């Protein structure tokens, strides 16, 4: 499989990377894990002139937590590390679960969550969970950085809000309030090595008395050109009592807001049908988690 020639650079510091990327960003692609990028190049869907390898930049590695800012995952962290991290398992277990179900073990040791996000595939595994967490993205560029809620990151099919010269530096998942939980559900044909036919991330926060919804986020994948939130449904659900009508509104709502297409993996009809089922299951799981925490406390 021949491809157009490209050059390869491996900066040794973040500063060097930023200046290189600022200078050559237009023709360059960032190589973090390569599990998407190298396949796209091999299949001749991309032909960058330069690959900038950031996989060993220590400034971009690591997972940390503090009670004010929450969980910070640096962009270069491998999916396998997220999957195994005690901090992630504690503060964002649904993310650990989504990470554990991404590709194969080999892919998880190579790929990064930044890559999973920046390729902006509507079927990607981690975006629904990150959207459910209302994660904040720290976006870097030479001489500065900015933050962006992930809900404003995916613009359209495989298009993100990154400006030329910008790169994804870190994910920040705010601490989960009491009586809240995130759950992730997905559907593929096989049990592993799948590109999901559907996936969903759900965030549910209950009011103090524990009977009604104080906040909710529902993020759906593979039902549109990007992963996105069913915001109209979320609005309707806020304040509702947790009862059959709540589930019916949630499931009916996501189906309304989903706009899937037929493709080689599944039909639009199937996706419309099952997104509601996954939503209900994710919300039930949120309730279970909240209840079990309550019991422990």
């Amino acid at each position, binding site marked *: 499989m021949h491809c157009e020639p490209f050059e390869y650079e491996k900066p040794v510091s973040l500063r060097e990377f930023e200046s290189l990327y600022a200078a050559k960003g237009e023709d360059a692609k960032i190589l973090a894990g390569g*599990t998407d990028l*190298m*396949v796209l190049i091999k299949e001749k869907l991309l032909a960058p002139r330069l690959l900038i390898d950031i*996989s060993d930049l220590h400034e971009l590695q690591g997972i940390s937590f503090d009670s004010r800012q929450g969980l910070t995952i640096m962009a270069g962290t491998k999916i396998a590390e997220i999957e195994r991290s005690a901090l992630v398992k504690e503060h964002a277990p649904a993310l650990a679960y989504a990470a554990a179900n991404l590709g194969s*073990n080999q892919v998880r040791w190579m790929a990064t969550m930044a890559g999973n996000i920046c390729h902006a595939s509507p079927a990607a595994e981690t975006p629904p969970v990150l959207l459910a967490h209302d994660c904040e993205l720290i976006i870097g560029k030479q001489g500065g950085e900015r933050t962006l809620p992930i809900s404003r990151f995916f613009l359209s099919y495989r298009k993100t809000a990154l400006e030329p010269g910008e790169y994804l530096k870190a994910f920040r998942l705010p601490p989960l309030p009491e009586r809240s939980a995130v759950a992730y559900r997905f559907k593929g044909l096989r049990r*592993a090595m799948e590109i999901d036919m559907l996936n969903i991330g759900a965030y549910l926060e209950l009011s103090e008395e524990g009977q009604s919804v104080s906040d909710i986020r529902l993020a759906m994948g593979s039902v549109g050109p990007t992963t996105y939130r069913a915001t109209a449904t979320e609005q309707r659900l806020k304040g509702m009592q947790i009862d059959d009508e709540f589930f019916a509104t949630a499931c009916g709502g996501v189906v309304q807001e989903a706009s899937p297409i037929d493709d080689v993996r599944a039909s639009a009809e199937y996706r419309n049908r099952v997104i509601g089922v996954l939503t209900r299951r994710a919300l039930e799981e949120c309730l279970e988690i909240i209840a079990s925490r309550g019991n422990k406390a």
Partner: protein
Amino acid sequence: MKKLIKLEINGENFDLAVEPTAYLIDVIRESVGLTGTKKGCGIGDCGACTVLIDGRPALSCITLAVACTGKAITTIEGLSKGTELHPVQRAFIDKGAVQCGFCTPGMVLSSKALLDENPHPSQDEIKTALAGNLCRCTGYAKIVEAVEHAGQLLSGEVTHEQA
């Protein structure tokens, strides 16, 4: 333009001139001549090309060779010492987990990486760890058995003779 790189493969250093576009699998197979690493799909879907990079399983068909300088690469040839097989290799033979042998090198390396991290994996953990290594001959059952057995061999719970 070719770049001069140094790759550490199975503890040995190789000085190589490679194009930036060269994939690790091709360099390992063609330039270094270690043909135990197999190419089954070329785009990271089958796992036949699995090698260990710093102990972690990686797909050498979608890894650039130039990106591997300074890392320790282990191929299937690096697992055994002469005729002395690694317990994972031993277990694959003992349990009949080898048929055509094409997926075997990748399968063995993925298994080794698993056992290094988790010496007593459950059947489900084994299946998950091997999900990226496709095999069409065995139906996986004997492979899963072999990995369980390898864990026992490694921990000394059983010896090869008892197998």
